[in-house]
């Protein structure tokens, strides 16, 4: 079913779908303006096209739930840990109390935290699927995000499901101080465990992916994909400019720049993400029996011919 119907079916939750949908309270059939090419687009068309402008391929921001639905086989996504949420362990109140930031983020998004995780099928493969939502305190990683990510890794390992995570983040959540920084170590430890269990892990870097989050679980994936034009880096461009007192090269920190510099596997348009991930899983998701038990060198013995 179309994403909007799915949401209607879950009334009471105020999920929104994508950044262009800010006019969604208007009657059906509303037209939206692409910020890049200035074309007006019928909303239904945009929705069908996973919020990629059909005229200039501009990728609108896609919110976490919509993202997850855009990747999962229809009707298969089941959310996990949906009630896990942040506290305010530091009683952080510089400028604006952290509790206020959290409350307004919850109100704006209808989410309990900045990441959605769950079980799903993807191209027929059982996976654990997660996506981050930049509207929620910049999708920064505090204790709750770190814990949800770590549990996603643990679930993938326990059930030997491929893990697919869609990343967007401004970095660590400074309002949780060192608890936030340590989530980098915690999620990287979880990623290392999954890797040693030889369960496949694919990350999809979207705009923007920065700071301490970039420097942890997202870049430890077996296959790293990124959306066209997404800005990805450790240090933000303004800080770098202040440090080196020079302007930055053109295209710096774009997905395409990172591909050229050997850091990611492929820049994939959003419309092809689901099929690309499914194809990768065809290769990396094997039968449930671990290799060691069979002794054979390969996952797919010659006699089976290959197509599962």
């Amino acid at each position: 079913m179309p994403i909007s119907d799915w949401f209607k079916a879950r009334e009471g939750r105020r999920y929104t779908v994508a950044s262009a949908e800010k006019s969604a309270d208007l009657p059906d059939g509303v037209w939206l303006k692409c910020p890049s090419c200035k074309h007006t687009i019928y909303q239904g068309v945009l929705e069908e096209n996973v919020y990629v402008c059909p005229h200039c391929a501009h990728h609108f921001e896609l919110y976490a739930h919509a993202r997850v639905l855009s990747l999962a086989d229809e009707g298969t996504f089941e959310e996990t840990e949906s009630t896990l949420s942040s506290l305010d362990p530091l009683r952080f109140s510089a400028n604006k109390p952290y509790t206020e930031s959290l409350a307004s983020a919850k109100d704006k998004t209808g989410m309990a935290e900045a990441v959605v995780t769950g079980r799903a099928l993807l191209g027929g493969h059982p996976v654990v699927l997660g996506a981050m939502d930049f509207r929620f305190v910049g999708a920064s990683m505090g204790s709750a995000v770190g814990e949800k990510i770590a549990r996603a890794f643990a679930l993938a390992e326990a059930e030997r499901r491929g893990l697919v995570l869609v990343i967007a983040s401004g970095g660590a959540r400074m309002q949780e101080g060192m608890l936030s920084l340590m989530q980098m170590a915690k999620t990287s430890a979880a990623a290392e465990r999954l890797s040693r269990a030889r369960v496949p892990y694919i990350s999809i870097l979207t705009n923007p992916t920065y700071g301490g989050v970039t420097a942890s679980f997202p870049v430890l994936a077996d296959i790293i994909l990124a959306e066209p034009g997404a800005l990805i880096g450790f240090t933000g461009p303004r800080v770098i400019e202040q440090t080196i007192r020079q302007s930055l090269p053109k295209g710096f920190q774009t997905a395409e720049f990172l591909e050229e510099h050997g850091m990611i596997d492929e820049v994939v348009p959003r419309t092809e993400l689901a099929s690309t991930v499914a194809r990768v899983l065809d290769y990396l998701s094997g039968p449930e029996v671990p290799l060691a038990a069979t002794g054979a060198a390969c996952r797919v013995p010659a006699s089976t011919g290959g197509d599962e």
Partner: protein
Amino acid sequence: MAQFVMEFERPLVDLEEKLQELKRLDLAADLELGEEIKELEAEIEQLRVTLYQALSPWERVQVARHPGRPKTQDYVEALCSEVVELNGDRLYGDDEAIFAGLATIAGHRCMVIGHRKGKSTKENIRRNFGSPHPEGLRKARRAMLMAEKFGLPVVTFVDTQGAYPGVEAEERGQAWAIAENLATLSALRVPIVAVGIGEGGSGGALAIGFGDRLIMLENAYYSVISPEACASILYKDAGRAPETASCLRMTAEDLVGLGIADEIIAEPLGGAHRDPSAVFAAVERAVIAALSELCVQDADALVERRFERLSAIGVYAEGE
């Protein structure tokens, strides 16, 4: 593009051109040149066989370097489906002289790695004529380790003049990158099938160019040094490469004789470029046969056999 003519095939090409001329006359003037044409065709056929059936090593090198010869990307396109290319070494850069990707060959899910020469000058510049930098070899190594992690056999296509001899390549550890690939290949716990499809230039070839099977195309070569460089060293005259090409024992047949290659795939008379699709089919059959045999083997035994196979290479004397 005009047909590229190797020096040694000039007499044949001359006859072929004459034949084309006769045929045009035949059609245009409706004359009865049938007999002459038939005779010429027979002559051509005989010359073709004479010329191509016993190519000298140096002539084979020319064939291996023929610009129309099928390249790694042609094999990937012809043999592989469901390709997912892997980019980058996650350390420094992405080297377009090396291809790495997940690919399916006749139902076998594999990791395919190959040197990637260009087909035009422009493409060749981008791909550095198929001569890898360290980052290309490290991308290949990342692909090998991914293959091992997920139990996918590795299929490599070898076709390079060698690792790139430049300042930056040295600075970033060309020797280190090659050696680490050799160590990794030697102990990788999945089957490795290497196919020599064109040039096999020294360390840059070897860095993705050995395993449990080495399959050589009939006119592919594999050598410790290019015949020209060898001639330069020995005779101070690169022009004597035809001699050193023989001395170095670098042909497919030599390699089988030395116990280094396992199998030779016959090429169409004149070379793989004369009938690529026949070559693709033959390579696919050979690769599949090798994989079918290797994939069911126990991983420990596979690695042990590969080690023994490598350890046995060499001819030396012992005792006073």
